[in-house]
């Protein structure tokens, strides 16, 4: 017997005496062996759960037995829930109303999932998302409280009880007209956006998951089942599972193409946008894009193909092809006649819906809020963002699809071949008996090493590419949220990781374009173009930006390539761009009549389009056909008096008149052009004169940026032609750039631009205010006394903005002038005591709660904090802090605990809680909260999660790095950490490191 056998026998022998006898026998003369076995037996006895898999997930997936169906009847108790009655049954399972006894007595909805799932995995996945789900706090989202397994080990979910009807049913039952349907739908979009911001994707949005309840007679939609589809359906990776999924979810009608693709892995927020689009389609015209009947009959693969490849008809087209009776019924439910409905849906609404239903998700709305905003524009009769899909796009769609995947695959394939070849060669050399000499052998070894290194590089490269792609996606969302600096950072990191991947260059160029930083944009677009030809509008962007950047040769190059593509593809939409770009420059070496012919064909197809007329006129001008040019341009101007871009025509017209020798007309047109640009630039500056925060308003273009650029370029050309000198530089261009750099938090660059702007516009109080504020930002964390001085100048300039008071007060505090801080707090409070503006109230309270007795009567802060709570739920943090300073410790604990639990925390909750608990005599709680505060600070500094981002958007984030350590230090001093409590001391040391090194570094520049 060897050691193992003796050990096994020994542990089978339970009785100690018997075991001793056995060991005596088995180990006979070997004292060492006996000693060793005894040690092992001892180890065995205290091994506990050592090495035991705590979560045998694989076991369950590989041999899940078919579970017996146990009828679940009312009265049954599941976990801490008692089933009351069945309230629904769907594809996924059965829903019961249930009663929860503890910790709170309430009625909940309990959804028991049909058999066939791996319960433990479902629950594990739910657990993984539980924290994120708990962060969701939105009146239009039903909360998911819990998940568990029934005795028959079927997973169940516990949710807020919503007694409502599916949104489509509600709308039809109440014959809601289209605009009311749209308003309801917009609410749903906002709810979905809220979840997306918390990083939660629904994955199964459909009418039966959007229930409408009545609240005071008002319909309130609630999105249910957040987190459920993910928990259930994450690992659907092959066809058999798809079958299950389709059965489970009931219908693939609302499923996005990428979900139907069944890579199963690659679902993001835009999948939900697609599903929302399907739902809107149905709300508008009563059917889904793919007909229910057809879907039911089709085989699974056919369904997948349809979703992935078939372009559904637009709502109005679908409506017109519906049978007359059905049409009448559908229209009646919307209180219109069929014609009226068709007219209503045709155009903008068609485009909005179809944009959400794009197969290529990069062409859908980027966010649910963006979707909602476009509907809002429709409701307000403003021009919508969605446009009919262009032929050029359809033509290019194929190449565009899965660019990253294609790129990654080719990279791997190419690299692998190289590595494999090298390996083979080196192996052959090594084996080769001829390779006697040391030299040859060393070459072989070297080759092999190279191959291995290459393989390693390759693997690293793929990982980097994926990381870059992830950053790109993240940046894209940040961009949608107008979080410019974080988006910039994300794109820049992606570029650093994989500079030969064109995506991040393009994305960063988009960002700079939106901010009006055209010089930065053209640099990035040029780099992207070196790697990969642009798609769609980026061609035109590249051409205009190159010309704007004084690179006419580059512009011309793009123009030639675009026309070549137009000839090959013959796509109309692209032809417009090609003709337009061709006319940016006086024709050099190309056939000047080619663009004319192109534009003429476009006008022939659409004679009533004023823009195309303008384009035709422009091409005539470039071809030297001035008479025709004048005719077309005048026609364009007369056709459409309210065409916003008609200003485009003025500079071209001026040049045309000049060529025709009609000098007076030329000067008049030139003056019109000057006025037009004046108004445009004014609008642009007006629209981004943000006050409260540095981001606000930047990146909003009241006109198409390229129209504006083109008009300026032509105006300059016209001035040079007619006057012989270029127009003077407009200082407002510096204003635009200054605000853009401030939005990117590149304060130094912003200050340079402000300086240039103010040199041209010396008496603009708003500009001076912004300059001082930006200087304050710049000096913050570097030189607080200087920051305080700058903020003070800004505050004197515009004393009615509480935020600047807030900054100044905090800067003084940081600079070590607590008296000035207190004085400013008191003044600010007196000045704004009656404000009803939540934002202002928040700014005031947030400054005044940082130190004890900042204001004579802290109770005043509570009422202001309640005004602030109108802004968002997170302001419980502010109320709690105010209560604490006013000595209402119990209320403070209540508010702060709620804030820390539910909402987007500001970050100071734990420090205030620690102090409040201390005052209430809760020693243990106080210690615990103090530790949490330290932990939170450490995490907040390193985390770049969705929540942190969201928090920063809400809270601004400029002063937080000063606040956290300040409040923490106050709490730690108050509580007086005892020497004995090593754990606490340890966290504290760590946190003091943070406060010294990381939390107080200057803002990124």
């Amino acid at each position, binding site marked *: 017997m060897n*050691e193992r056998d003796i050990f096994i026998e020994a542990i089978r022998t339970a009785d100690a005496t018997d075991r001793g006898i056995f060991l005596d026998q088995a180990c006979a003369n070997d004292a060492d062996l006996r000693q060793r076995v005894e040690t092992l037996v001892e*180890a065995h006895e205290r091994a506990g759960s050592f090495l035991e898999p705590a979560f*045998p997930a694989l076991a369950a997936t590989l041999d899940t037995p078919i579970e017996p169906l146990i009828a679940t009847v009312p009265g049954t108790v599941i976990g801490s829930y008692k089933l009351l009655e069945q309230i629904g049954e769907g594809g996924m399972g059965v829903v019961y109303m249930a009663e929860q006894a503890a910790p709170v007595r309430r009625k909940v909805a309990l959804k028991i999932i049909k058999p066939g799932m791996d319960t433990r995995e479902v629950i594990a996945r739910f657990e993984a998302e539980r924290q994120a789900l708990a962060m969701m706090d939105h009146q239009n989202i039903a909360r998911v409280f819990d998940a568990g397994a029934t005795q028959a080990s079927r997973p169940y979910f516990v949710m807020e009880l919503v007694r409502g009807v599916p949104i489509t049913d509600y709308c039809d039952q109440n014959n809601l007209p289209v605009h009311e349907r749209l308003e309801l739908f917009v609410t749903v979009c906002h709810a979905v956006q809220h979840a997306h911001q918390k990083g939660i994707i629904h994955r199964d949005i459909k009418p039966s998951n959007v229930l409408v309840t009545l609240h005071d007679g008002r319909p309130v939609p609630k999105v249910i089942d957040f987190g459920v589809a993910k928990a259930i359906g994450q690992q659907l990776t092959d066809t058999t599972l798809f079958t299950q999924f389709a059965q489970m979810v009931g219908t693939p009608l609302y499923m996005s193409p990428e979900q139907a693709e069944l890579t199963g892995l690659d679902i993001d927020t835009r999948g939900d946008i697609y599903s929302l689009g399907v739902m809107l389609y149905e709300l508008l015209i009563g059917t889904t894009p793919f007909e229910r009947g057809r879907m039911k009959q089709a085989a699974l693969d056919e369904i997948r193909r349809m979703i992935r490849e078939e372009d559904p008809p637009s709502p109005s087209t679908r409506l017109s092809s519906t049978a007359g009776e059905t049409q009448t019924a559908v229209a009646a439910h919307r209180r219109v006649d069929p014609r009226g409905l068709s007219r209503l849906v045709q155009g903008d609404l068609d485009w909005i819906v179809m944009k959400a239903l794009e197969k290529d998700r990069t062409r859908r709305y980027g966010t649910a809020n963006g979707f909602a905003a476009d509907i809002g524009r429709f409701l307000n009769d403003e021009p919508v963002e969605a446009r009919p899909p262009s032929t050029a796009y359809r033509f290019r769609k194929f190449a565009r699809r899965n660019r990253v995947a294609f790129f990654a695959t080719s990279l791997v394939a190419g690299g692998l071949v190289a590595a494999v070849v090298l390996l083979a060669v080196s192996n052959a050399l090594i084996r080769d008996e001829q390779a006697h000499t040391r030299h040859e052998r060393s070459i072989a070894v070297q080759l092999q090493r190279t191959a291995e290194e290459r393989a390693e590089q390759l693997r690293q490269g793929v990982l980097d590419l994926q990381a870059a*792609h992830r950053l790109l996606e993240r940046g894209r969302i940040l961009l949608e949220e107008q979080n410019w600096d974080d988006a910039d950072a994300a794109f820049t990191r992606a570029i650093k990781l994989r500079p030969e991947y064109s995506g991040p260059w393009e994305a960063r160029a988009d960002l700079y374009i939106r901010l009006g930083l055209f010089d930065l944009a053209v640099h990035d677009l040029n780099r992207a173009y070196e790697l990969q030809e642009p798609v769609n509008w980026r061609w035109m962007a590249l051409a205009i930006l190159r010309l704007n950047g004084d690179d006419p040769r580059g512009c011309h190059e793009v123009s030639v390539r675009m026309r070549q593509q137009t000839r090959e593809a013959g796509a109309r939409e692209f032809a417009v761009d090609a003709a337009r770009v061709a006319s940016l420059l006086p024709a050099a070496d190309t056939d000047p009549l080619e663009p004319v012919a192109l534009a003429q064909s476009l006008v022939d197809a659409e004679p009533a389009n004023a823009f195309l007329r303008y384009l035709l006129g422009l091409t005539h001008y470039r071809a030297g056909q001035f008479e025709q040019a004048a005719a077309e341009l005048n026609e364009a101007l007369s056709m459409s008096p309210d065409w916003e871009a008609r200003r485009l025509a003025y500079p071209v017209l001026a040049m045309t008149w000049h060529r025709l020798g009609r000098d007076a007309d030329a000067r008049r047109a030139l003056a019109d052009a000057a006025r037009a640009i004046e108004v445009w630039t004014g609008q642009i500056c007006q629209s981004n004169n943000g006050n409260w925060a540095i981001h606000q308003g930047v990146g909003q273009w009241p006109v198409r940026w390229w129209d504006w650029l083109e008009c300026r370029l032509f105006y300059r050309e016209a001035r040079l032609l007619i006057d012989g000198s270029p127009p003077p530089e407009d200082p407002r261009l510096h204003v635009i750039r200054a605000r853009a750099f401030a939005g990117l938090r590149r304060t130094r660059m912003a200050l340079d631009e402000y300086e240039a702007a103010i040199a041209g516009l010396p008496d603009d109080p708003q500009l001076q205010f912004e300059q001082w504020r930006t200087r304050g930002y710049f000096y913050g964390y570097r030189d607080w006394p200087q920051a305080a001085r700058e903020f003070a100048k800004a505050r004197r300039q515009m004393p009615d903005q509480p935020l600047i008071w807030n900054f100044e007060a905090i800067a003084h505090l940081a600079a070590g002038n607590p008296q000035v801080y207190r004085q400013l707090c008191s003044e600010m409070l007196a000045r704004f005591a009656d404000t009803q503006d939540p934002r202002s109230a928040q700014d005031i309270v947030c400054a005044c709660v940082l130190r004890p007795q900042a204001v004579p009567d802290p109770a005043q802060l509570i009422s202001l904090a309640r005004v602030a709570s109108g802004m968002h739920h997170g302001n419980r943090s502010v109320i709690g802090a105010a209560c604490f300073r006013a000595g209402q410790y119990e209320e403070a604990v209540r508010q702060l605990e709620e804030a820390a639990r539910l909402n987007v925390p500001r970050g100071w909750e734990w420090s205030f809680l620690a102090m409040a608990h201390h005052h209430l005599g809760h020693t243990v709680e106080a210690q615990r909260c103090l530790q949490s505060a330290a932990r939170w600070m450490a995490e907040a500094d390193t985390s770049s999660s969705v929540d942190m981002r969201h928090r920063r958007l809400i809270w601004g984030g400029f002063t937080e790095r000063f606040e956290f350590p300040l409040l923490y230090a106050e709490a730690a001093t108050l509580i007086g950490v005892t020497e004995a409590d090593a754990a606490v001391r340890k966290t504290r040391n760590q946190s003091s490191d943070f406060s010294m090194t990381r939390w107080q570094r200057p803002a990124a520049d």
Partner: protein
Amino acid sequence: MGDVTRILADIERGDPQAAEQLLPLVYEELRKLAAQKMAQENPGQTLQATALVHDAYVRLVDHENAQAWDSRGHFFAAAAEAMRRILVDNARRRASLKNGGHLSREPLIESAIAATEITGDILAVDEALTKLARSDPQAAELVKLRFFTGLTIKQAAASMGISSRSADDVWAYARAWLLHEIECDQPRPAAHRSGQ
């Protein structure tokens, strides 16, 4: 995809080189899967080692032609070894980070693979396991299957071609052996840490 199934068939036919070919394929697939999932999941989310192995199995092995537990066994043996390498490398790198190694803002892909189902210190276990493999390769193999891919005793036994009962015995022996080894190595009783 078909490669793995073919290799499994080769192994069963007794081709001694086939087993060697399997490991790199499985290793690569696991890392790729991990990276892919990381790219899609929220930052901060962790991946279950066993779930990864399962996914790799679903993706690499053609189920129609590889139903027998025998071939699964070979697969899991390779997966266990691959996952061991990934997790151990990862633990080493993390340890070196803690000791002031190069700090990168971008997380290691593998650091997100949480062996949530594992209780114990990976590096210590791995070191002890290497020693066990020298004195009792079968016991070490069983531990690898259990510890790094989360197979149940029954599955591991089937995969190794032994009875469940003897697998139970071997498992008890291996656990005691490893626990003892780890404790001897580190005089403080710190090795046996609860995983959660």
